[in-house]
């Protein structure tokens, strides 16, 4: 991590020791995210990848302090966004951060768009909630935003209600709302999962273009490594509440170090693969977060697991600017390896 200190000026987001737990009906606490670290540079795209229940969406929500009870963010957690620790802000201060510093979009636009108001109204209200501008100025800005996210004929669609639009158009409206105050960070939680593949391609292209046009950083949460390959500069892989591997996208995808990443990459059917061959698959299922195995959380499903893996949990082992939480990566001969706690 010393090497990243020099990039401190370009760093937009730093998550330190983030732990999120949920009280269960049995009186125990389920630890959904267990002490993770993440950084994101200004203007770059980071993909956070994992399967359902791995904690990726909770991570996204905890950045903007959107975790609701019974969920609780651990006391030692720090979320530095543009120089401020969001875990220390009051609800009022947080509200002021959410527009101009960070915006968020969700998988299901209906969770973020009010069905009772026209889409144009909702975009201009967002602008007026954060800036003192007249209704006319807000309307003009809203129309500009609608054309920026390529909603055809914004003048005509301004007075549409959300239900009059298709899923892809609603997703564009949500993006327009999220970027209305020119945030430095856009958090996109499975933004295209509910969309058809040709519409998904349009939305991903839009997000990539917005990054270059607005110089905005994007944290994209997805279960699809293909999406990450197409747009992210860096990728972090989550498994059962921990980050198990991270690094530059090409490096991680071409040379995955963690057996889980390797398994994920191999088990997705890709176009034109040998149809005679069986799909490699990861045996078993994701562990129950209340009843985690001792040692490495992936060990019960891992073909390369050995004695140590079942006793002691590996933490992210740093390999230059990438890391993997796997004992296999800890070669004793490698100079300069450091175990981060």
């Amino acid at each position, binding site marked *: 991590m010393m090497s990243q200190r020099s990039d401190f000026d370009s760093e937009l987001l730093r998550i330190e020791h983030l732990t999120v737990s949920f009280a269960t009906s049995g009186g125990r606490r389920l630890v959904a995210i267990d002490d993770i670290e993440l950084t994101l540079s200004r203007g770059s795209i980071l993909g956070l990848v994992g399967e359902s229940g791995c904690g990726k969406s909770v991570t996204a929500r905890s950045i903007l302090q959107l975790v609701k009870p019974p969920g609780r963010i651990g006391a030692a957690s720090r979320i530095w966004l543009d120089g401020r620790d969001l875990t220390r802000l009051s609800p009022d201060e947080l509200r002021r951060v959410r527009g101009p510093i960070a915006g968020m979009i969700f998988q299901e636009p209906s969770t973020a768009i009010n069905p009772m108001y026209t889409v144009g109204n909702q975009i201009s209200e967002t602008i007026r909630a954060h800036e003192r501008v007249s209704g006319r100025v807000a309307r003009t800005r809203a129309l500009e935003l609608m054309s920026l996210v390529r909603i055809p004929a914004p003048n005509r669609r301004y007075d549409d209600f959300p239900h009059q639009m298709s899923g892809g158009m609603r997703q564009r409206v949500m993006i327009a709302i999220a970027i209305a105050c020119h945030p430095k960070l856009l958090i996109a939680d499975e933004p295209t999962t509910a969309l058809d593949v*040709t519409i*998904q391609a349009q939305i991903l292209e839009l997000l990539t273009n917005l990054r270059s046009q607005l110089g905005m950083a994007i944290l994209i949460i997805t279960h699809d490594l*293909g999406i990450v*390959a197409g747009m992210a500069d860096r990728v972090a892989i989550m498994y059962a509440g921990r980050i198990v591997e991270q690094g530059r996208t*090409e490096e991680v995808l071409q040379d995955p170090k963690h057996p889980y990443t390797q398994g994920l990459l191999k088990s997705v059917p890709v*176009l034109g693969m040998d*149809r005679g061959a069986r799909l490699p698959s*990861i045996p078993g299922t994701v562990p129950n977060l209340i009843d985690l195995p001792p040692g490495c959380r992936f060990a019960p499903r891992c073909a390369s697991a050995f004695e140590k893996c079942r006793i002691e949990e590996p933490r992210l082992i740093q390999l230059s600017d990438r890391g993997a939480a796997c004992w296999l990566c800890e070669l004793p001969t490698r100079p300069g390896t450091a175990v981060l706690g």
Partner: protein
Amino acid sequence: MTSPVTNVPLLEARSVYKHFPVRRGLLQRVVAKVRAVDGVDLEILPLETFGLVGESGCGKSTLGRTLVRLLEPTSGEIRFQGEAITRLQGRETKRIRRDMQFIFQDSATSLNPRKTIGEIVAEGLLIHNIGTARERHSRALEIMNRVGLGPALADRYPQECSGGQRQRVGIARALVLEPKLVIADEPVSSLDVSIQSQVLNLLVDLRQRFGLTYLFIAHNLAVVTYIADRVAVMYLGKVVELATSEDLLLNPLHPYTVSLLSAIPDVMAARRRKRVILAGEIPSPMSPPSGCHFRTRCPIAQPICAEVEPTLVSGGRGHSVACHFPGTFSG
């Protein structure tokens, strides 16, 4: 019943249409029609896996349900093992249903939460009056074992199972009657990738072990071309291209297939050619465009495409395409 000879289709559809009326007003007058399936011809051969691929609203699920008469076709002829099944009634329908079973996408809503897994799997046997209660139970355990579900699960309820287990229950339920044709509608799309590949492998194993024919319906072209021998690509109620999986991947002829292939996010994206990103959205099946249904989004549309509807024409080697300019768009 004819004896199964290869190349005699197991299931045959001729000019199948399925239109849903849209009713409005006090008198519930029909004001429009949703043309979900708009004239489809296809043949599914014994022991093959036939893939049906397309985006939401293209009519692939409606077609799947119509082919096994879970929905009544508006018009057209469907033959199963050479027998016309479009007009079968009551007991006759029940007889052919034994040979055609369905696996649904959403195992959470397609399994009765008040029945145990054992009861759910054995239910088909009960409906068809096969065996005693004890025989049905042991048959259920046997088939559960085949799909990788332990006997302990037989007394559990669907809501106690994981998504992957529930999908296996859906598969066991479909196979307990030893059907000839299994229609699987998006069987893996609600599963995580690590579980998805387990279920795909299971479907391949079962096909060999039980001599099954699959109609595999999905939106993911990579999954469909992996599992299917032949694939039909649907757009707005029509089949626009039909080919073997290999031909479809190596030599796609319809501009829609080319765009669909290019739009799939791929971990090997860096090595791939430039992306084709289709403009616009899928038109409403209530008022499809004139001529070719795809022309409003087609990158190579010409005036003729708005006037004359292209028909599905075979270009040899079983590769058919419905386009006035097949093979001229390569992305």
